[in-house]
């Protein structure tokens, strides 16, 4: 691909990259910075791409590394947010009754994989992740999108393994509720 074609492709990719970087970093300035750095890096190696899809895969790979670098640079700020999340008393109490049953029974999502073919689903998914408190959103995305192992996450965020599991559990249950309410329940009534 020539430089002009690459520039065009990168321009198209930019909004999606900024959105995912924001979800992961929870800081608009950091997100803009890591995306710009990643796009510049891609532009510099323009000659080595044959297809559009290669550019995308490559840029996302770079972006993931830049995000991790940003976490390291931000260090204390990020682990303070994680700690604040743990000090919060959210024990998912609102989701359960006194007998430990879900207050609203978890629905059957049918064949949820069909949703993966719909762009609207990813819009809802990202909105739901965005609604998680910053500390939870970051750790959840580190685990599920950056695909970090939990002990790596604990180390990066300077929190204990137990706390890591607590936060991931909260994040998953909150996300589950949000998806059920805003996508799967809504889908049934469509």
């Amino acid at each position, binding site marked *: 691909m020539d430089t002009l074609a690459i520039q065009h492709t990168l321009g198209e990719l930019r909004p999606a990259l900024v959105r995912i970087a924001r979800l992961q970093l929870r800081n608009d300035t950091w997100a803009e910075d890591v995306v710009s750095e990643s796009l510049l890096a891609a532009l510099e190696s323009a000659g080595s791409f044959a297809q559009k899809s290669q550019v995308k895969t490559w840029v996302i790979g770079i972006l993931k590394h830049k995000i991790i670098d940003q976490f390291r640079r931000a260090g204390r700020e990020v682990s303070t947010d994680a700690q604040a999340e743990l000090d919060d008393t959210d024990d998912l109490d609102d989701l359960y009754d006194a007998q430990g049953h879900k207050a609203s029974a978890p629905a059957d999502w049918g064949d949820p*994989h069909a949703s993966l073919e719909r762009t609207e689903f990813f819009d809802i998914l990202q909105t739901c992740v965005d609604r998680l408190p910053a500390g939870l959103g970051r750790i959840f995305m580190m685990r599920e999108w950056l695909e970090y192992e939990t002990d790596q996450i604990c180390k990066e965020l300077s929190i204990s393994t137990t706390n890591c599991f607590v936060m991931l*559990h909260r994040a998953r249950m909150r996300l589950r509720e949000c998806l059920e309410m805003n996508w799967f329940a809504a889908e049934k009534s469509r």
Partner: protein
Amino acid sequence: MKASGVIWIRCRHAHKLLSTRMDKPLATTDRIRLWMHLSICEFCSHVNRQMNFMRAAVRRIAK
């Protein structure tokens, strides 16, 4: 009632184990507890599938 030694767990506990299982292998007793709970609880079986689905979905963001 203390949790240790109890074989029948509640949904709330099952959800915690379902999440933990996404991050590390469960201890044998927990595995048995969860398995027994899932065998009788349709709702937690939904949640079980949803945990795996959420992982697959997040990995496809921006792909």
